[in-house]
């Protein structure tokens, strides 16, 4: 097999993102991570919702399902359950993930499907030209919040920790090498892995710049215990500095494990016949 490079996973389509968009770097880190895993592009499936970041699947040569706003995760779960051999990666932005699709994040965490979710957080709705998102800074005034912002912002990593998401990490798009390593580990993780990525929108969010991100971030201690949920929560609670790296990484049964166990129990209930067919189902109605 030929050695894969990031380029092996790129389509010929040029991204429609603005010139300074952080998402370019996320695309680079993601495709570099894909190359490390060595999984063939046609064995990978990307899902996304709607928004700037959700356009990413078009820029890869993997299979992709660009769904409607907020629904990247349910689509990914359906794909993975029906086709467990595939590597499934969902991508999207902060509005897609934490606002319109917020409910799905909770329940994906509960189900623990073996998929990876990369959220490119620019703290703004960019595609609709700049409205406050659930992660926007409280001081960010936009055309739809011209006087004052009403809502508090959410803390995605802390939220994931509270749902016991089985792999939780944060990266910064400019630190491409670290982001690549995190994504490789996220893909290789058995279970639902969540990667929160700072990816500035220079066009519409002047509160979040590359410079401000650089100033704000700090690496988690090298010896951070990724099994310690409480400790991870305390790092996640800290907003200044904003910690980067793998917060949490535990093993628990995946959705696939549970479904196989259910299959076993369902067969036990009928005494494990060697061959159970539709005709046996129909007999119940005779």
């Amino acid at each position, binding site marked *: 097999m030929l050695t894969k490079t990031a380029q092996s996973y790129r389509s010929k389509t040029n991204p429609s993102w603005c010139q300074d968009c952080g998402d370019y770097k996320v695309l680079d880190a993601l495709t570099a991570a894909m190359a490390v895993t060595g999984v063939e592009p046609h064995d990978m499936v990307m899902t996304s919702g709607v928004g700037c970041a959700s356009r990413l*699947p078009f820029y890869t040569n993997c299979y992709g*399902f660009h769904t409607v706003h907020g629904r990247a995760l349910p689509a990914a779960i359906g*794909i993975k359950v*029906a086709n467990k051999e595939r590597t499934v990666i969902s991508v999207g932005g902060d509005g897609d993930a934490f606002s319109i699709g917020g409910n799905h994040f909770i329940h994906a965490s509960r189900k623990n499907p073996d998929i990876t979710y990369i959220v490119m957080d620019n703290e703004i709705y960019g595609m609709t030209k700049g409205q406050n998102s659930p992660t926007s800074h409280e001081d960010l005034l936009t055309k739809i919040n011209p006087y004052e912002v009403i809502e508090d912002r959410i803390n995605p990593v802390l939220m994931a920790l509270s749902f016991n998401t089985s792999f939780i990490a944060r990266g910064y798009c400019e630190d491409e090498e670290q982001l690549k390593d995190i994504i490789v580990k996220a893909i290789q993780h058995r279970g639902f892995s969540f990667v929160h990525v700072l990816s500035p929108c220079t066009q519409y969010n002047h509160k979040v710049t590359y410079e401000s991100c650089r100033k704000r971030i700090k690496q988690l201690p090298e010896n951070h215990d990724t099994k310690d949920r409480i400790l991870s929560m305390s790092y996640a609670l800290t907003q200044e500095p904003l910690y980067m790296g793998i917060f949490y990484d535990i093993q628990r049964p995946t959705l696939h494990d549970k479904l196989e166990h259910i299959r076993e129990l369902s067969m036990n209930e009928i005494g494990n016949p060697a061959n159970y067919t539709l005709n046996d189902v129909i007999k119940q109605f005779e």
Partner: protein
Amino acid sequence: MGELVIRIVGSPGDGVISSGDILTLAAARSGRYVSTYRSFPTEIRGVDQSLYQLRISSKKILTPADDVDVLIAFNEKFLRDNISSLKTGGVMIFDSSENNAQFEEFQNVTKYFIPMTNLSKEFATERSKNMVALGILSGLMPNIDIKDEIKSDIRKKYETKGEEVIEQNVQAFEKAYTWARQNIPQKAFLENLAIEKSGKKLILSGCEAMALGALVAGCKFYSGYPITPATEIMEFLAKELPRLGGNVIQCEDEIAAITEALGASFSGVKAMTATSGPGLSLMSEAIGLASMAELPIVIVDVQRGGPSTGMPTKTEQSDLNLAIYGTHGDTPKIVLAPINVEDSFYQTVKAFNYAEKYQVPVIILSDVSLGERRECIDAFNIEDIEVIDRLKPDTIDVNVPYSRYTKTYTGISPISTPGQKGGAYIATGLEHTEDCAPSSKPQIHATMTEKRFKKLDTAQSEFLAARKYGSDDARFGIISWGSTSGPVLEAIDLAEKQGYNIQALYPRIIYPFPTKWINDFLDNKDILLIVERNYCAQFANTIVYRCTCMNKNLQIHNLMKYNGEPFTTNEITTKIDQIIKGQYLKFTTHQ
């Protein structure tokens, strides 16, 4: 020959539904046709009545019938509420344990005052009065010998409750049977009633029939959110699908349910979700996604009273507009409406076939009365049922980019499956070119919209004609859809006995709209009656709007019912009578 209609009424907790279920299964297993109707309050301990009606017959039947031969009542209020449905010469069985009323005013019926609660205490426990009722009934009709079937179905019903409960219920039934044989001297017409048996049957509910149809069609993925009255489908599949290599996923909401099913379909697996009106509303956006991305999916809507939360346990046919017109944009899809339990099975298999073949979402419109009704269907061979799989690219040249949405003569383009080399593509809800590039160019949107609708033209050219009932030379036509068709067809039989020549048309494919079949049907009609269970005349309005022949001197009438209950045959014959005698209201559209 032979037929018997039984109704059992009581408060929730009296065991009305359990006893009805047992009697239904027993009658079906004995080789007779059965059709049922059940109704119970939305609240588990409500103040409304629980009602179970079953019709046992030697021949295939279309409805659970209007009037009954036997009425079993556990309290006075519900006896009084139902006595008008008891036929002249019918049998009333009343629980007289705590009520000595003699109901002198009920004329021309045989009245049995049986202290069923007291007998239950004496024979087993007081909770078995419903089994006492079954014992009394069996004792009254020795020629319809289903005693053994009842006993075996009692065992099945209480299987999970332990041996003690099973024994108490069997005891109550058996002792009540013996008691009835010894203590009821005059046994009315039931004593000699016989109902012939015929071939092997399956007995199942409308919901079970759809779940079974899905399995036979090859469904391997179901995702859903609990909702009355569709949950029975999910319960059945949750038990069976894992054994057949499939999976059932409980979702956080209906939006996730349909999107997971679409994900599974994208993965190459036949997928279904089922819901009721509120869920279908939530699913609308994703139904459009399925249309745009051309992904096969089957969506069952077991309609209930609406709008909003409406009446979860009451029946209505008011989601027609939502199913046909509900999604934003120009959305090719197929909508099917089975008319009875047997049809629910076969239409579900067809729904999968159509979804796979034409790569569109297919919505099946059932309703509470049909989904919960149990009916017999003739046993079948699985091998005889046609199952269609989606068109796949035979071979893909890895050197040429795969064009997922290639325009073809039929509109149908082959779908690759993740894992297939050279077949990678992006399914998207955005307008796109043939090779999946997002595009908002005028030319692309126009031609790709045409391409997607081309599939419906292809489908329509392949669909069989809508079903008709009655004589082609009839000048009076009735059009109905879904479960309303049962009473309509029965009404036509009754009308024939009065010398009226009436023909019915009942399309099971509701969308693409059966304009051609309706026009053909109306060609020689002078009078048209459209019957449906909603306030806004949803089907009638669409017929009037779409069918050009409405220009001629056709007299159009319609009959709507919107109180949450199914039509009785009598309501339709009454309307026919009024129209023929000229005492009618003209066509009304409330909105």
